[in-house]
């Protein structure tokens, strides 16, 4: 069993989004729904991938859980979560409370 989250890129802005328990796409990994059951995660991905008019290229990532808050396990996902390392742009530069997609 692993902890998984569904991620994609928003259709218009192209930025990183995650699927929340509400079924909405949100911009913070900490707000994402964590799937603990592989079959359930796969089924949810199937549904999420069909919503490509909101977010593009949905896929599952494995996450760590600290106090119930998901965090990235792979460096690629850590970069997607933060933004580029050469410029203070992307998520690291954006203040919280971006609207959900």
């Amino acid at each position, binding site marked *: 069993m692993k902890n998984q989250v569904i991620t994609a*890129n928003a*259709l*218009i*802005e*192209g*930025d*990183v989004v995650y699927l929340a328990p509400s079924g909405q796409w949100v911009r913070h990994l900490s707000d994402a729904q964590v799937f603990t059951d592989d079959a359930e995660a796969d089924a949810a991905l199937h549904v999420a991938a069909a919503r*490509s*008019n909101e977010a*593009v*290229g949905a896929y599952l990532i494995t996450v760590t859980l600290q106090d119930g808050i998901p965090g990235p*396990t*792979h*460096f*690629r996902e850590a*970069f*997607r979560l933060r*933004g*580029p*390392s*050469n*410029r203070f*742009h*992307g*998520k690291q530069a954006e203040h919280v409370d971006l609207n959900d997609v």
Partner: protein
Amino acid sequence: MYDYNAFDRAFLKERNSQFRAQVARRISGELTEDEFKPLRLMNGVYLQLHAYMLRVAIPYGTLNSAQMRKLAELATRWDKGYGHFTTRQNIQYNWPKLSDIPDMLDSLGEVGLHAIQTSGNTIRNVTADHFAGAAADELADPRPVAELIRQWSTDHPEFQFMPRKFKIAITGSPNDRAVTRAHDIGLRMVERDGETGFEVLVGGGLGRTPMIGKVIEEFLPRADLLPYLEAIVSVWNQIGRRDNKYKARIKITVHEHGIDEIRRLVRARFAALRGEFSGIDQQLLAEIEAQFAPPAFRQAGTDGYEAARKADPLFRSWSDTNLTPHRAEGYAIVSVSLKKHGATPGDASAAQMRVLADLAERYGHDELRISHEQNVILPHVHKSDLPALFAALREADLATANIGLASDIIACPGMDYCALATARSIPIAQQIAQRVDALKIEHDLGALKIKISGCINACGHHHVGHIGILGLDRAGVENYQITLGGDHTETAALGTRTGPGFSYDEIVPAIERLMLAYLGLRLTDDEPFAETYRRVGLGPFKAALYEEAQAYAAE
């Protein structure tokens, strides 16, 4: 330079309006992503790690000041105030919104620029020697032919859905600055019995399976060029593999069928095609050539330049590294470094682009070039203007004196932006540049090409770097492999892997050990890195890389 005629303008307008409608249909949900993706790729739009990316073609690397100002305007209006110049002489914007891209393309169209075929399985932007039309060592300016190829390949109905992408590079100089041997087709102007023609290379490429291009024709008459190119692409389009994208490029086709069989097929196809090109291409070429007439070079003294060199050591250092001989007396080719130590290779702010446009207009006959080495060139500057130009560049933070040196590093965007990357490239380049600057060894090291790719696709040309660095994902951590002895010139060669890779924290010290080893190994102070490597081979460098590392670890 080539100016768009009424046909070009109408074509671009129509094409942009088609893409605008496609974007609208995507946003409204009428088009799925699967349907839209090939359409956006045809128009240079990628979806990267953090945002969309728009790749704008800079045809054969040539721009005028109005076009450069337009690039700055796009950066300011629709992006984050900068652009990234690439190893394919393009510019990339890293942060556009999908809904803004049609406006960006219309805006580019106002100055005759576009993003058509900067992606997708098409013939891509034709690249050329960045000193074309200016270099002292050139037979002829290759850009009229490059423009002819651009017109022929753009929206060519037969070549819109090929097995894979296709890249053509051209040089008019025997000193190859366009890496022609690492392209699907490389064209080198050559002279035979007083006639100018082309040596045609085919099947070169870097990436997963790097290959040096092979000679398919030693001498192709100029008038045969377009039908011959069409024959090559047409043969490959039919027999190139579509079952496996990693085996689809023409280098694999040439490798599997052999150059002799490919030559036979191409010549047969050429014989069938030749008649269809009733000479209209040569008529077109003549019209294009007239637009590439050299500027009216002025006659003037260069005393001021010599005096400034004597008086100002900073100017002298810059003019030692950043100037190249020009074919016109009293002129120089100026390379403006986009590699300030610690900066992102190839990035220019909108303000810097505007300064460069102003300087080109004022001192450079209104011409700029983008090099595959990710720098900006002012190809025609009279030496008497160089002191003033240098002062203006300094004010814009563009006067770094490091062209061709260790900090003049090619680096792809890597995992800071690119969805395909397996590791970061940019911070490695930044740290190496800062390190050589801190050690003050850059000028002592002399000519040294370091090239970094953040994945196996090799956009950073690592295979042909004197020192090549390839970033990989090894079991979930960034790992960097080193190759040595690559050569990007007319004597092109692929580098040899040194051995196991290094972690993100280890790679910069490893490169430092290589550089220090070279300083100890060279016979004389003017034996360049590449020659020392050829003389002593991999062994001593390998020892410096691995034995010392082990010694440190044992301490």
